[in-house]
C-alpha cells in the first residue's frame, strides 16, 4: 500500500516535471519527436545539470517534442559509455552528456574506450579554469603566487576538488610549466569535491585553489576569494575583474567543455537532426535563460570542429600527463 502510494507520488512528480517542461511547445519548429539523455553520473552533478538544462531548453523552445533522462553512474562514466556502445542499435535517439574527463580518463585507462568510439554530436558549453586565493591573502597575482611558492616550496600547498592527475591538478601544473617551474614538484592537495576544497582554502589549510571559473565567480562576487588568473584568452565579460593567465605572461589556456555524444553508427539524418536542434537552440531565449541561470559559457563546437578540438586537447593533456608521470 505504502509502496504503491510512494511510487505514485514518484510518478506524479516526474509527470509534473515533464508536463511543465514541455508546456510551451508545439509550433512548427519541432525537429525531433523525442530525445533520451544518458547521464553517466548521479542526480545533481554537473553532467546531470547540463543534460537536464539542455533538455529543458530544447522542449520549451519547441525543438524537441519530449525528453527523458537516465542516470547511469559507475566507473567514472565508463559504465554509460559501454552501455551506449553495446546497445547502439536500440539507442538511436540517445544523447550522452560528457566533458573533459572523458579525454583524461581514457588516457589514464579508467575505461578502455575513448571519444573515437562514439559519434560526436557537439560541444555545447564550457567553463574556464581559475586559480583563486583567500581575499586576505598577500598574494595579488600569479607573480606573487610563484614568488611565495619559490620561497616556501613544499609547504606551499595548492588544492583542487579532484584526484591527482585530474583536471584541477593538470591546470595548476600547466601554469607551473608555463612559468618555467617543474610541474611535478609542487604540493597538490586533493579534496573529494569542489565545495570541500573551497572550505579548505577559506580555512587557510591550502594557500591557493585550482577550480572552475564559474564556481570561483560565485564566491569572488561576495568578496570571499580573489581570482588571480583565469585560463581564457581574454577577460570574461561575466566577471571582468579577473585577470587572464595570458596577460600575466603565463602562456596557458584551458576550457573544460561539456557536450554530447551519440551511439556509434547512427544514421546521418539522425546526427544532423541532433546537431540542428542544438544549433538552433543556441539562439532561443529559452536557452539563454537556462545558460544564464547556470552561469555557463557558450562554446559551440559542432561535429568535425568538435573532433579537432578533442584531438588537440588530448594531445596537450597527454603530453602534460606524460611529463607529470601519470602515463
Amino acid at each position, binding site marked *: 500500500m505504502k509502496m504503491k502510494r510512494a511510487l505514485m507520488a514518484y510518478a506524479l512528480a516526474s509527470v509534473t516535471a515533464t508536463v511543465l517542461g514541455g508546456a510551451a511547445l508545439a509550433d512548427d519548429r519541432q525537429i525531433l519527436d523525442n530525445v533520451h539523455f544518458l547521464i553517466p553520473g548521479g542526480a545533481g552533478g554537473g553532467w546531470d545539470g547540463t543534460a537536464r538544462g539542455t533538455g529543458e531548453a530544447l522542449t520549451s523552445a519547441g525543438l524537441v517534442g519530449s525528453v527523458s533522462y537516465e542516470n547511469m553512474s559507475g566507473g567514472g562514466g565508463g*559504465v554509460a559509455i559501454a552501455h551506449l556502445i553495446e546497445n547502439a542499435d536500440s539507442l538511436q535517439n540517445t544523447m550522452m552528456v560528457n566533458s573533459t574527463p572523458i579525454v583524461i580518463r581514457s588516457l589514464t585507462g579508467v575505461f578502455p574506450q575513448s571519444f573515437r568510439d562514439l559519434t560526436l554530436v557537439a560541444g555545447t558549453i564550457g567553463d574556464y579554469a581559475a586559480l583563486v586565493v583567500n581575499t586576505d591573502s598577500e598574494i595579488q597575482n600569479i607573480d606573487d603566487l610563484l614568488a611565495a611558492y619559490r620561497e616556501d616550496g613544499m609547504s606551499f600547498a595548492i588544492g583542487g576538488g579532484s584526484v591527482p592527475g585530474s583536471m584541477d591538478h593538470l591546470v595548476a601544473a600547466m601554469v607551473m610549466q608555463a612559468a618555467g617551474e617543474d610541474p611535478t614538484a609542487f604540493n597538490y592537495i586533493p579534496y573529494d569535491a569542489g565545495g570541500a576544497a573551497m572550505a579548505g582554502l577559506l580555512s587557510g589549510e591550502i594557500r591557493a585553489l585550482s577550480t572552475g571559473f564559474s564556481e570561483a565567480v560565485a564566491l569572488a562576487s561576495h568578496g570571499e576569494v580573489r581570482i588571480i588568473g583565469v585560463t581564457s584568452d581574454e577577460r570574461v565579460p561575466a566577471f571582468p575583474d579577473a585577470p587572464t593567465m595570458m596577460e600575466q605572461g603565463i602562456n596557458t589556456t584551458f576550457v573544460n567543455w561539456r557536450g554530447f555524444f551519440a551511439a556509434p553508427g547512427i544514421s546521418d539524418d539522425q546526427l544532423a537532426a541532433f546537431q540542428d536542434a542544438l544549433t538552433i537552440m543556441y539562439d532561443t531565449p529559452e536557452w539563454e535563460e537556462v545558460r544564464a541561470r547556470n552561469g555557463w559559457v557558450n562554446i559551440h563546437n559542432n561535429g568535425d570542429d568538435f573532433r579537432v578540438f578533442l584531438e588537440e586537447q588530448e594531445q596537450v593533456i597527454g603530453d602534460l600527463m606524460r611529463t607529470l608521470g601519470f602515463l
Partner: protein
Amino acid sequence: MIEGILIGLSAAFSIQNLLMVIAGCLIGTFIGMLPGLGPMSIIAIMIPVAITLGDPAAALILLAGVYYGAIFGGSTSSILLNAPGVAGTVATSFDGYPMAQNGQAGKALTIAAVASFAGGTLGAILLMIFAPVLSQVALSFHSAEYFALMVVGLSAIAAFTGTGQVAKALMMTILGLILATVGEGALFNLPRFTMGLMDLQSGISFITLAMAMFALPEAMFLVINPVRSASGGRSGKIDNLRFSREEGRAMVPVIGRQSVQGFFIGVLPGAGATIASFLGYAVERNLAKGEEQAAFGKGAVKGLAAPETANNAACVGSFVPLLTLGIPGSGTTAILLGALIALNVTPGPRLMTDTPEIFWAVIISMFIGNLVLLILNLPLIPYIAKILAIPRTYLIPFILFFTLMGAYIGQNNATELLILVGLGVMATLLRFADYPLAPLLIGFILGTMLEDNFARSMQLYRGLDFIFERPMTLTLLVVALLLVLLPSYRAHRVRKRAEND
C-alpha cells in the same frame, strides 16, 4: 531580527506556500521511504518543479518540505524494516527496529516524528541566532581535525557494543574499513581491489551495503526462523501511538542535548548528519545509567530519540556554511546550492544583508516544514505502521523487493544486485556466528573520510606532526581514547563492586 522574522513570515504565509509545504512534505515522506532515494535525489527530482514556480520563497518552502519529509521517510524504513536508506538513519535502526519488533512500531514512529520535529525546530532557532557567528567555526576545522573527528566517530562503536562482544565488534569495524578502500580513493588515481570490475571503480555504494547488512539478513532470518518472527511484533497492538509520561520526561534532556550537539556537528562542512547521529547515540548511552544503559540496542526510548534529534539538528546546521559562506557541506546542500543559484540567489556572506527576505524565508520555511510534517504524519502513522501487520508470506517478498529495488535504483546497474546478494549472504553468515553488523557499516561509512583526511594531513604536514601541532586534533583524539576506555572502566568498577558484595 524581529523585522527579519516578520519579512520571512509574510513571505511564507500564503495559501500557495502552505499548499507547497504540504505537497513537499507528502512527496518527501513517501519517496523517502524507498531506500534508493535519499533526500539528495528527491530534491534533484523536485528542482525543475520548484524552479517553474518562479518565486524563490515558494520554491524554497517546497524544497524544505521535501527535504524534511525525506529525512522522516528514511527513518520510517529504518524503524519498520531495518532498511536504512541514508547513512544518517543507520543509528535510528539500532533501537527503532527492536522497538517495532516488540510490537511498538506506532510508538517508535511517533517518537521519531517528535524527536525529528524537536531537533529540526531547535536547530532552526540556533541557526537563526548563531548563523553569522558560526561561519568562522565551520572554517576552524582543517583536515587534521576532520581525521580526529572520524576517529571519535569510530571510537563511539565501543559504546554500541554489548559486553563480551568487543573483540567481534572490533573485527567487524576493521572489515568495514577494508570494504571502504575498494574503488578509486580521493587521493590516489588508481583503482584498488576492484578485481578489474568497472562496477567497483567508484567503490561499493552505501545503499547496497546497508541493504546487504541490515535488510537482507532480516528477510533471510524471517524465512529460516518462523518462531521468532511469529512471536514478534506482528500480533502486537501497533495502533498504540502514545509514549508514556515517564518516557516523555526521559526524552526531554536527550532532545535538548542532541539538538545542540547535532547542530554544531552539522555546521562542520562534510561531517554532517551521520556523525551527529552516531555520536549522539554514543553520548546518550554513556550518560545513561545501569538498567537504562542495558536497554540500549533493545528498544530504548532514549536510544531512538538521540539519533533522530541529532540527525535533524545536523541537517539544519549544514545550512550555516551554505547560507553564510556559499559552501555546500553535504551532498544535499550541494543540490540546494544549485537550486538557489538557479533561482538567482547566490548564498554567501552578503546574503543576509543583500536579500534578507530570502535568508528569512529559508529559516521560516524550516519551522513550517517541520511543523507541517509533524501534523501530517502523526495521523498517518497507524497506517504506515500497519506494514508490519502484513502476513509473513507477503512481507518477506515485499522486503526483498524493497531491498533489491533500493540497490538498483541509485545506480541503474544490474551488477549492483549481484554485489548486494553476495554481501547479503556474507552478512547472514556473520549474523549466524553472532557478529554485530552495525560496526561494519559504521566502519565503512567513516572509512573513506578517515582515510582522505588522514592522507591529506600527512601530505600537508609531510608526516604525523599535525597531531601535536594542532591542539584541537589532539583534544579530539584524547576524547576518542576516553570514549573507548570509559565503558570498560565502568564495567570493571561494576564487577569490582559485585565482588566486594
